């Protein structure tokens, strides 16, 4: 009854770790130190232990003896009762009952580390089904290697994949999350109540004795009760000889009672059923008549048991029959569960048997013969298309326009097999198309699968992940040099000490001028910017010099990223970067509707408009007010309900006064009530001139949190003799990723 193992997964290795040992591998490595995600399946009695270190350890590595810095995550510590996280040997998290591991079967987990933010979750898809999250106050940015370890029992690991750890608010995952429809993994016998409004995606159980898409019937019992069924479902788990002579293919079963047939169908559609003991024999007969093998075996087994206990009677005790659901969690999104034979269902796509709809793509012709039922199980769009009464509901030919054929066929194939049949090395463009298609038709599981593949692909090809603007610069230089390997800008800097740019870049020298403005230098670390400014790049490349005031950027520069920028340009090498950036990080827009408020009432000197204008104001301040008995003064910026900013840099300008702020905070908020500190300044002496500009980066995980409101607030009086509670700034600017 068990399905054969997933062929794609099969390729991935499985490891059994002996007690007090640890498995390391070059493959178990984050591409970027301090940031990464590992997804795996584990089977153990207790203590599924993962070690995160800067360097790989030995086979007999034990974390209790480790002196270097590391993180330990233990799922099912204390005899499978607790979740533990240790940092450098010290227990920092010890909570009961989370993320336990059950011995009998493999369970999927993922652990993501992002600048000290450790997230642990269940399932195959990172950032979904999160169990626990903990932020290291002193992030270890160096962890890179993952060790799979154990305690006193063997631990089995398999399907281990490493991915870049996207920040949680990454558009890639978050958009899907809200649309994700939780399918009941148990495939239980309780029929999911069909929502009255028809808003829920239907499961196979919803089609049990349902006329929708039904293409054949049973006529059962002496009362000739008509029961609608679907050939594609029955055909995938047995042999049902329908009489095709009738107007609607039918099987007449005059001698079978309806409850027995109902049991059979319920077993097929939902994976489990109940039946009275005395009807068991009839069910056995019926299921062997139609060769529903799992049920035959099951019935025989139970009858055998009953005979042994000598209890075959006419009792009406209900017996529960259910197919093994042990693999259910592995295919938790897969609508076809045992006893349905997935190979047969795949076969139906190939040979078009029982097909009731022909799928055409305009400009290409027939794509495939398909089954409305199967398409509907995956996508509510298809379900509605076939049922809501428009043209397609009665047509047997359905035409699609504006869809890429190759990806569209993969989409249909996925619906029949639950697998993505693409070779990951070759086919990324199709993967992106498929991602878009799965969004168009609302197939969440496929969206996840595509995202996962793209992440894996990017993880394998580290140079394709845009982890910083420096990498974009590297890519531009590489492309312009027509080089085969990815060049670092520092190596180009060295090359330029001996070579002329004309020689180095040849015909693509002019392309540099076009491409360089696409690098968002403001996001580069100031120290690196200084290096760049002094490098041979700036000396030899005209365009680079024009970008200059590089260090000036840090002081006063209208940073460009608040303007719409077209990421898609015509240079192929850059294109792939741009797509990734577009898909993953951000979409910019100018449609800003900023509201600024101050802690004191607006006045001639407290003018919100002045704060966001570029003009210098000699006197511009927010006066103090009492809040909860405490003195405070602040400027607050609201970028509107439709936008959020992940702020990673900010600039203020002192007005003409000498009341300099010394202790203040920059805070962000989603609702304007609860605030998160982004940057805390305590006795910061940076500002010491009237009219001075000053900028600070926002580092750490808070730079990745999107906010709608930002405020800059004095926490202690500033310098000077009078009005020290005035927040005397005349200009505030925030930079970061905007959406």
């Amino acid at each position, binding site marked *: 009854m068990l399905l054969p193992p997933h062929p794609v997964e099969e390729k991935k290795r499985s490891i059994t770790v002996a007690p007090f040992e640890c498995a390391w591998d070059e493959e178990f490595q984050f591409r970027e130190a301090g940031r990464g995600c590992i997804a795996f399946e584990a089977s153990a009695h207790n203590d599924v232990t993962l070690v995160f270190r800067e360097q790989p350890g030995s086979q007999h590595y034990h974390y209790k003896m480790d002196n270097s810095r590391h993180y330990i995550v233990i799922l099912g510590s204390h005899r499978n009762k607790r979740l533990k996280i240790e940092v450098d040997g010290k227990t920092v998290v010890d909570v009961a009952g989370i993320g336990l591991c059950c011995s009998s079967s493999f369970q999927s987990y993922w652990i993501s580390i992002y600048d000290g933010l450790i997230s642990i979750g269940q399932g195959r898809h990172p950032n979904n089904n999160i169990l626990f999250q903990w932020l290291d106050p002193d992030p270890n940015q160096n962890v890179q290697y993952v060790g799979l370890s154990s305690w006193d029992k063997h631990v089995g690991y398999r399907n281990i994949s490493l991915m870049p750890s996207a920040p949680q608010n990454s558009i890639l995952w978050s958009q899907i999350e809200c649309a994700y429809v939780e399918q009941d993994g148990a495939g239980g016998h309780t029929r999911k109540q069909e929502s009255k409004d028809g808003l829920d995606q239907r499961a196979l159980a919803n089609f049990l004795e349902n006329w929708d898409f039904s293409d054949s019937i049973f006529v059962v019992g002496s009362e000739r009760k008509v029961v609608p069924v679907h050939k594609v479902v029955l055909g995938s788990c047995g042999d049902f000889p329908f009489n095709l002579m009738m107007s609607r293919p039918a099987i007449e079963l005059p001698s079978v009672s309806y409850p027995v047939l109902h049991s059979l169908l319920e077993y097929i559609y939902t994976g489990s059923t109940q039946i009275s003991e005395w009807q068991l024999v009839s069910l056995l007969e019926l299921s062997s008549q139609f060769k529903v093998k799992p049920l035959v075996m099951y019935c025989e087994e139970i009858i055998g048991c009953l005979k042994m206990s000598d209890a075959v009677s006419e009792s009406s005790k209900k017996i529960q029959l259910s197919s093994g659901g042990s693999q259910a969690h592995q295919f938790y999104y897969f609508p076809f569960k045992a006893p349905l034979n997935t190979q047969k269902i795949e076969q139906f796509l190939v040979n078009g048997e029982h097909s009731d709809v022909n799928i055409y793509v305009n400009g290409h012709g027939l794509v495939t013969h398909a089954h409305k039922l199967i398409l509907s199980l995956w996508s509510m*769009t298809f379900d*509605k298309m076939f049922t*809501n009464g*428009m*043209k397609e509901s009665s047509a047997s030919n359905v035409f699609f326009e504006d869809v890429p054929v190759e990806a569209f066929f993969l989409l249909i194939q996925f619906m029949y097999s639950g697998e993505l049949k693409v070779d990951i090395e070759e086919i990324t463009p199709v993967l992106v198309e498929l991602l878009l298609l799965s969004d168009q038709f609302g197939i969440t599981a496929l969206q996840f699968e595509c995202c996962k593949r793209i992440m894996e692909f990017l993880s394998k*090809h580290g140079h394709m992940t845009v982890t910083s603007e420096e990498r974009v610069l590297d890519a531009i230089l590489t492309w312009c040099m027509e080089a085969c390997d990815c060049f670092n800008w520092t190596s180009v800097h060295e090359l330029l000490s001996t070579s002329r740019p004309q020689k180095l870049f040849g015909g693509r020298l002019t392309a540099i001028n076009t491409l360089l403005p696409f690098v968002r230098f403001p996001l580069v670390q100031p120290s690196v910017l200084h290096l760049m400014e002094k490098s041979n790049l700036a000396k030899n490349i005209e365009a680079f010099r024009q970008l200059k005031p590089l260090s000036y950027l840090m002081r006063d520069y209208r940073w460009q990223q608040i303007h719409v920028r077209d990421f*898609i340009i015509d240079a192929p090498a850059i*294109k792939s970067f741009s797509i990734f950036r577009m898909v993953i990080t951000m979409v910019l827009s100018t449609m800003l509707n900023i509201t600024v408020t101050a802690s004191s009432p607006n006045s001639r000197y407290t003018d919100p408009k002045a704060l966001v204008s570029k003009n210098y104001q000699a006197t511009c301040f927010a006066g103090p007010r009492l809040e909860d008995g405490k003195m405070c003064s602040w400027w607050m910026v609201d970028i509107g309900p439709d936008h959020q900013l992940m702020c990673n840099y900010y600039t203020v300008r002192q007005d003409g006064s000498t009341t300099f702020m010394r202790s203040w905070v920059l805070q962000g908020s989603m609702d304007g009530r609860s605030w998160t500190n982004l940057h805390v300044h305590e006795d910061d002496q940076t500002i010491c001139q009237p009219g001075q500009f000053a900028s600070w980066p926002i580092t750490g995980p808070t730079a990745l949190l999107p906010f709608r409101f930002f405020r800059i607030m004095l926490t202690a009086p500033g310098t000077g003799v009078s009005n020290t509670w005035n927040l005397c700034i005349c200009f505030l600017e925030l930079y970061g990723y905007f959406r």
Partner: protein
Amino acid sequence: MTTRSQIQPLPFRRMRMDAALAASSCQAVTDAIRDIYAQDMEKLNFEQLYRRVYEVVLNKHGELMYSEVATALMAEVEGLRTSLVAVADDGGGGGSFLRELLSKWRRHTEAVAAVRDMVMYMERTFVVTYRKVSVQELGVKLWRDGVVCSGDVMPRLVEAVRRERAAAEPGELMAGVAEMLTKLGDKVLSQVMDASSVDDYSSASLEKSVMDASSVDDYSSASLEKSVSEYQ
């Protein structure tokens, strides 16, 4: 490792939609809404309409699409109200008025369901992201504010319900009205009930029919179960 050869340029379609194209797509959708209300759905092409909505929303014209759909629904509801008001009072207890009201309500809910299917992509993305009122709720709201609570329907409804309640047993018609009012929310329900109350007996019988109607409703029964379990 010659990984470089594996990076392929993406033939990414530059999907940019100008305002005119977006507007014409919106026009097609609003035309479809008119056809849906005219119960002329057979000729509509679901794939085409769904794709138009998808493209418009994808190209950041979601707001336009949403407001166009809302406007079209409002116009259709207004049309239904006009034809409802035009129904002559038969003098025989307002039965024909209630029947007409219910048939229009049914037509409206079916149409809203069909519209929702058509704009499903917008519902799934734009409506969620921008915390808009879903089309389903919008349909209920429009019916409540635009028809039931409007000045020329409410008095007749109250009058008809009062006569209906004065009659001995609440019939099928009354059950239908009660079901509709339950969907429209407690405020309208109590407004109609209070205004039309005759005496204790029949108000109890209306409440009964309301209970019957609400137990059909998934949401109410769930909340009822919840309150029962809380009570225990």
